[in-house]
């Protein structure tokens, strides 16, 4: 076999599965008898079939593709996979998600900013946290006074202050 079962083929498999899942769940959409052809099931079903077809095509191309093409692609750029930085960057929005309601927008923003900055090479954690809190606080104030949109101040602080 000239090609290989690699990440691309895995993606193809995922597409097939998603397509199949889409098709099955589309059948659950309630449809009144009068509009069977035109109803809300039609497009999802077509899209689902397309996904399955594309998924199979992707798998086929990867498994049976010519070795030269695959090698050319791989040789063009040898990616240096940087897992630690990636995970640090991912931690940013994740921390935001977990902390924005209990700890407030400013703290969450600080964590987001500092995490992404660190992922991109900054080693000055305290400074980055400080900048993050500043940006978060400015946005908090600007949004509530400027646009009338209230961002969370942190339920933890509410209970501490006898909210």
């Amino acid at each position: 076999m000239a090609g290989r079962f690699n990440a691309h083929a895995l993606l193809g498999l995922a597409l097939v599965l998603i397509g199949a899942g889409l098709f099955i769940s589309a059948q659950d959409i309630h449809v009144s008898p009068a509009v069977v052809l035109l109803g809300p099931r039609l497009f999802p079903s077509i899209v689902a079939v397309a996904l399955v077809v594309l998924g199979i095509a992707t798998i086929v191309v990867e498994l049976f593709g010519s070795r030269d093409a695959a090698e050319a692609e791989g040789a063009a750029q040898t990616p240096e996979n940087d897992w630690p930085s990636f995970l640090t960057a991912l931690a940013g929005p994740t921390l935001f998600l977990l902390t924005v309601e209990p700890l407030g927008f400013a703290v969450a923003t600080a964590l987001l900013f500092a995490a992404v900055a660190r992922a991109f090479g900054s080693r000055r954690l305290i400074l980055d946290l400080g900048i993050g809190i500043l940006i978060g606080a400015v946005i908090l104030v600007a949004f509530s006074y400027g646009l009338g949109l209230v961002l969370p101040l942190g339920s933890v602080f509410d209970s501490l202050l006898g909210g």
Partner: protein
Amino acid sequence: MDVFSNLAHGFAVAFTPLNLLWSLVGVTLGTAIGILPGIGPALTIALLLPVTYKLDPTAAFIMFGGLYYGAMYGSSTTAILINTPGETGSLVTTIDGNKMARKGRGAAALATSAIGSFVAGLIGTLLLAVLAPEVVKLALLFGPADYFSLMVVAFAAVSALLGSSVLRGLVSLFVGITIGLIGIDQQTGQSRFTFGILELQDGLGVVLVAVALFAVGEALYLASRADLRREEIIPVKGRAFMTREDWARSWKPWLRGTLIGFPFGALPAGGAELPTFISYKVEKSLSKKPEEFGEGAIEGVAGPEAANNAAVAGVLVPLLTFGLPTSSTAAIMLAAFQQYGLQPGPLLFSSNSALVWGLIASLLIGNAMLLVLNLPLVGLWVRLLYIPKPWLYGGISVFAMLGVYGINRSLVDVIALILLGLLGCMMRRLDYPIAPVIVGLILGPLSEIQFRRAVQISQGDLSVFFTRPISAALLTIAALMLIGAVAAHWRRSRKAALA
């Protein structure tokens, strides 16, 4: 002639102090984001959408238009100085532009790109003003079946022309369409794929998806690739300046670039990359010194830069006349129109002509502003590049999060942002194009509506798509595009295998 009275009307709208201010804000912001890596006009407009909701639509669109043009100007600066295009439209500029900078001719490269962009923007916008009313007449002949087929052409073109393979383009497109399926079906009120989550009833909005894919996805991708994070900035000596020889060698490429860029921008999947490649090839074959290309030939900068600005004007033609977006930025602008309850198309020209012509006139004004901003002030803009990357991407992440969370305060949105961001990162790593996802997201639901309307009108007769002449012609074009692209790809890989 009609054009003059339309433009006069437009200038009356555009020349108010407030709208001039918005134009200035737009072009300045656009240049800044064009210069900053990691953020482009599509993402910026997506982020500005929630904030501009309260603005008068004319002002908002004047700002967006200026932003779009400005981004094209700004991104050439990074292409020339640090070999990193701010936008894909400036990819080709890096080839000769960066070489010129390394040889100390950076100022000339910047000048030719700025002036070329101005010339192209001027001619392109005038062409837009002249052609738009004519195209509108054509658009009035379109029925739902024809609109559906037009969107199929867009789908085909997006898949065929963007990205390294048709298959990958199609996959991206259908991923976008799938995401677009989430939400309440407009014609029957049924919830689809919402998994019982209330917040998903309205579907995943364009802002969310665009921000997730472009900002978060890009940040995660770059974080995972240590090799992509190194670069050096070449200092610019003096202001943007060209010698007489530079002028003589530049003006024809400017004009040729404009003529190439405009029609490509108007085509579905027009984006600015293809016309710039074509312009480069054309200039190289017409040049008396083709060996200079790749080493710093000024024509290699002048032509493509004019092409990418003309393409922006071209993109606006189908967007305003048909409501058909031909680039991801245009797709986001379409979402902006929808936000204001406006439907671009022939009706917009008659019901809201002040907005349309005001926008077109302000593009002419903005174009002039950009020339002033970019020629003498280049040194200032380059300072932006010295923002440390960690803070730049930290800031981008914060604004991305704000754009998504700040409006609905929904944690579901944040989860979606993270998941879609991971998707975007994965797509970048596996070399799948992202623009088709946005196009699929926007056009998917629209095409479904047109499809069902068309079949309703024909009372279940599916052949209507093939019997109406416009529709049949469009579907044929779509098929030819896909077949052509696959054939070209196949021929290329056979050549490679035989070599």
